């Protein structure tokens, strides 16, 4: 049972708003939500009317919670009152409203472009303040971030799982400018806002991979006519080309401690896995098969590499123990399994999977060995887990162009992220940043 497009009407005013900000911004459409999503009342905050709609923290929180699929913000029209402090809540008045929770808050300007924010998360049934937080001296440009941090806290309070709203994503866009394809590497907040271009090129850009500290991206660029791996800082202008070998240099993935990079090189004649020690610059060959061995990802303990190989004819996921060099096949179900991305707890792996009805995103559960498809879009690829393992960001094709989608780990809630006039592909969800 899926509530296809039911929530779209709620998202439309927000989309119109977003489209006026910048043409490069990612816009989000909610495709499907849970039937039994929890109603939640996000009361408009009391705040200076000089703030833009984009700086509306209540809106940020409501949108985040809605996007998770678990929550259903209640229409403002149903609010019997608009309290902005806990003391103002008249609980009796809220009996008629179908909601267990209230979120209220206020923003006041302390000095020029410096704000104080108070937000309370209230359990209406138990008449209990679950969270009451205050931020001081916050710049206007950081108000959305406060909304994301509060969303994470509320998500954790209700569901017992850390939220992933205060995180970033990386992706590649392709668009035509003067009949020429232009590729950009972008970073944006997890809700698509604040997108920033960190690389523009006339040649393809692929496979962005976040360093575990969230400060660097490794990626593949064809700017010199062939695939080469680069590391670039998110903040500042550090950029370095890694040693490039004959053939392909591709599919970088950081070790969990950030000291090594696994990658695929074909310098030995066939695409095989290698590990580069980023301190010493030394390369170690990990696999040496005649097949295509690529798209490696590390286990959280850094002891195992998961990758796909077509050594049995079609791509399947294998694992190699980095100490013993023992290889074992992981996936057996379906004729095409590739591009593994492990959840941070190592319990699941998101993969590209063909169960006979096309290429879709699936989850492999290590404990049971079960594989279940979670996406139902067209030409899916590049799955990337949110850092809390709850959602998977991936690339797909809709209406003849590449777009991104986010789907919950159980496949029941999903959203589409697209950029006007551009294709979007190769997404990677960044880690929690301390």
């Amino acid at each position, binding site marked *: 049972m899926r509530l296809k497009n039911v929530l779209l009407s709620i998202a439309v005013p927000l989309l119109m708003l977003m489209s006026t900000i910048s043409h490069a911004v990612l816009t989000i459409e909610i495709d499907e939500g849970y039937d039994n999503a929890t109603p939640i009342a996000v009361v408009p905050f009391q705040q200076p009317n000089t703030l833009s709609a984009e700086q509306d923290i209540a809106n940020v929180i409501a949108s985040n919670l809605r996007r998770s699929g678990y929550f259903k913000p209640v229409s403002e029209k149903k609010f019997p009152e608009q309290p902005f402090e806990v003391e103002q809540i008249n609980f009796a008045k809220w009996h008629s409203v179908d909601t267990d929770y209230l979120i209220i808050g206020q923003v006041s300007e302390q000095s020029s472009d410096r704000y104080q924010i108070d937000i309370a998360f209230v359990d209406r049934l138990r008449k209990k303040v679950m969270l009451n937080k205050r931020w001081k001296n916050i710049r206007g440009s950081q108000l959305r971030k406060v909304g994301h941090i509060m969303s994470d806290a509320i998500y954790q309070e209700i569901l017992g799982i850390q939220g992933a709203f205060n995180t970033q994503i990386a992706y590649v866009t392709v668009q035509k*400018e003067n009949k020429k*394809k*232009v590729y950009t590497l972008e*970073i944006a907040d997890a809700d698509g806002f604040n997108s*920033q*271009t*960190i*690389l*523009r*090129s*006339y*040649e*393809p850009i*692929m*496979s962005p991979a976040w360093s575990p500290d969230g400060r660097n991206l490794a990626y*593949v*660029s*064809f*700017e*010199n*006519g*062939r*695939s080469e791996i680069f590391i*670039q800082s*998110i*903040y*500042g*202008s550090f*950029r370095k080309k890694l040693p490039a070998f004959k*053939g*392909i240099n*591709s*599919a970088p993935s950081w070790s969990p401690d950030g000291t090594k990079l696994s990658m*695929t090189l*074909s310098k030995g*004649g*066939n*695409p095989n896995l290698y590990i580069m020690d980023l301190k010493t610059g030394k390369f170690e060959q990990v696999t040496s098969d005649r097949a*295509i*061995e*690529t*798209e490696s990802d590390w286990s959280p303990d850094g002891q195992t590499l998961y990758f*796909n190989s*077509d050594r049995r004819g*079609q*791509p399947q996921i294998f694992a190699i123990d980095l100490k013993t060099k023992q290889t074992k096949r992981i996936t057996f179900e379906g004729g*095409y399994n*590739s*591009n593994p991305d492990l959840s941070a707890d190592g319990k699941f792996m998101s993969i*590209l999977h063909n169960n006979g009805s096309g*290429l879709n995103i699936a989850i492999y559960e290590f404990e049971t060995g079960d594989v279940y498809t979670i996406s139902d879009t*067209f*030409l899916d*690829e*590049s799955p990337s887990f949110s850092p809390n393992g709850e959602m998977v960001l991936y690339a797909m*094709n809709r209406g*003849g162009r590449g777009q991104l989608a986010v789907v919950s780990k159980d496949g029941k809630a999903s959203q589409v992220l697209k950029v006007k006039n551009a294709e979007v*592909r*190769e997404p990677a969800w960044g880690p929690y940043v301390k």
Partner: protein
Amino acid sequence: MNKLKLTLLPALLISLVGCSSTPTGTEMETQGSATVVDPATPEYSGIQTTSLNRSEYLDPMDLTQAENLSQMTSEELAEMEPKGVFFPVIYFGFDQFNITDDSLETIKFYAEILKANPTKTIKISGHTDERGSSGYNLGLGEKRASAVFDAFSTLNIAADRLDTVSFGEEKPALAGSNEEAWAKNRRVELLLK
């Protein structure tokens, strides 16, 4: 005789080289075409990439050898009637990188040209359709280019005259997400230089 016959081939090829200057062909040229953008700079104005120079890239073949044509007898010229000029593209099945008999004819055709023109080299670019993961497809494009490289090698073309590169699914020859486009995109492009 055989030597004379081969000297004409470059002339026949001029049109082929012209054909390869489709969008995918011209995009192969790259020289410092990427620009790093510092996120600290909020406004990024325009593209700072260098423009491609089409004429430099195409590197037309040397036509002076066509003079040899006049030295051929009419009989020889009749024999020159092209039995088949091979378009410089080799196609593959889905997730395949084997060289078919038809493909081998194309490779032989270009191997003969290389033998007749010792200063020429050939660029072998492997491509895939858009289906499947891009990392795997980059590997698959490499496998396709390598298979063509190996075929040239068995025809005694020296390795230093063969330049392979894989673009995976990144540079489709034909836009579209359908069987027709996919079939055209699973390919190796040959480019004489």
